[in-house]
């Protein structure tokens, strides 16, 4: 059993086999195999308790059908089911997605990382800069002139509205 501790000091107990999906955790476990139980505590800073919950849910779902995803041996039905499940899993606010990306990056979970990045890029697709700014709540720090003239003129082809 592995214990993950989030930044707000909540503890999460996970089976070693399940947590192994994180390459970082797997390496750490390999390094410290055979040592005392205290070693099996992993502190995950920067991530509030909501995220480990989600990550563990994701791990459990993938643990039930590991590695088959890449193989042709998985039936279409199962693949479709997993796809549907993932779509629902990633259908969340951009805040959570960002935390998931951070978590997936530091814990090194490639499939979770790719899935979350793809979802964020889907949200940004075909949107104007203003919309993206609104979604991501990035503060606009440009002066009015800069916004109106300088930057758009740098690569004018981007701002033409027709997109086909």
């Amino acid at each position: 059993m592995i214990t993950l501790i989030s930044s707000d000091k909540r503890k999460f107990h996970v089976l070693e086999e399940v947590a192994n999906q994180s390459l970082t955790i797997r390496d750490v476990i390999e390094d410290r195999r055979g040592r005392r139980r205290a070693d099996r505590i992993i502190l995950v800073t920067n991530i509030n308790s909501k995220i480990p919950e989600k990550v563990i849910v994701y791990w459990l779902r993938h643990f039930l059908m590991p590695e088959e995803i890449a193989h042709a041996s998985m039936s279409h039905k199962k693949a479709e089911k997993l796809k549907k499940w993932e779509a629902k899993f990633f259908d969340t606010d951009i805040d959570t997605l960002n935390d998931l990306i951070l978590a997936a990056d530091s814990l090194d979970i490639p499939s979770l990382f790719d899935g979350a990045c793809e979802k964020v890029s889907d949200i940004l697709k075909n949107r104007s800069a203003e919309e993206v700014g609104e979604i991501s709540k990035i503060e606009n720090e440009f002066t009015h002139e800069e916004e109106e003239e300088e930057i758009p003129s740098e690569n004018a082809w981007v701002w033409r509205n027709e997109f086909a």
Partner: protein
Amino acid sequence: MDLSPILIHSDLPDDPNRVDNFSNLPDELIISILSLLHTCDAARTSLLARRFCRLWESSTSIHIFSSQSDKFVAMADHALLQRNITNSLLSLRLSYTSKSNKSLPVSLISSYLIKARNLNIRHLFIHDSTLNLEPNILSIIFSINSLESLHITSYRLYKEYSLPAATMLTCLRILRFLVFRINSAKLNQLLSELCCLEDLHLETMMEHDISLSSHTIRKLKLSNSRTIYLGLYIPTLELLHYESNRVPCFRGEIPSLREAVFIFDDVGEKDIKAGSGLLKYISHAEKLTLEINEDTEEMYPFPLMLEPGKVAPMFSRLKHLDVTACFHDFNLEAVVSLLHHSPALESVSLRPHSLLEQTKEKRKIGLQSCLVMLMVIAAMLISPTSI
């Protein structure tokens, strides 16, 4: 002994009151998100904040997609030609779908490809309905020795063209060629030169009689309409996907085959002989998917998969069977025979063609056969060992 708990964290300060969604992500993570976007969308983020001004230029992929030549050229010029050589580029996707028949100048395409070669790209996609695959364009593509996957779609090609030597492509694993026509001798020459090709997808017109040989291909997808005799000499082949409007006579050896998918459209009487040979050829597969759309204009129904009275070959390893067809008497008999000769079967799915589209008489056939089929499957489920 080190007893402290293991710390995993990213380098950023933990601030619960932050409002900004992106600024807390490190550059590399933002770049991996931007890399998933079309270059145009990615470039629009330059107006978000100062930090984003130059960030999109480091995206590891360039995807230019346009139907207007001036826009396409402006995008490619900025994103590709002016790209700093130190910024690594993994994939380049050029999609040009002009409504007019005017193609982009060859010199322009060549300059993009040469730049891509200098950037050591690994994945190249060219989708251009107007592109003429001139020898010099092909020879530049075939000299990019960092390439791992290559997709070319180009339908404007009515004359045979020559394929340059591909000995430079030593890392190429995936090749997709969706072109108008290709000569099989040249194709075989190409296959013998590609030393680690694993995945080949061809959608093209070929001669009536072709044979393909390779010692590395594991996945093969073929779509073509004219082939009557098809020889496959690929000992490593695991997955075969074949789509056509006629059933070819198969020959050759594919001993490692695990999964086979066949989709046939408009098959008629001419295919009967080849059809029964087909089952024999792939009888060692573990998973078999068949989709048969019969040409109802011809003598219908007819025995395509199995000649009446004959027995199906033994499918000793078949675990999953998926058949989409109209289950008239002949097809029904063939499927029943197939089921009887598959001792290792784990799952079966039978999809009758949408019955509503067909005439009343055929609908009756369809419904009857569905009932029989259900009974057969039920019998199998009750006593799987006795069959």
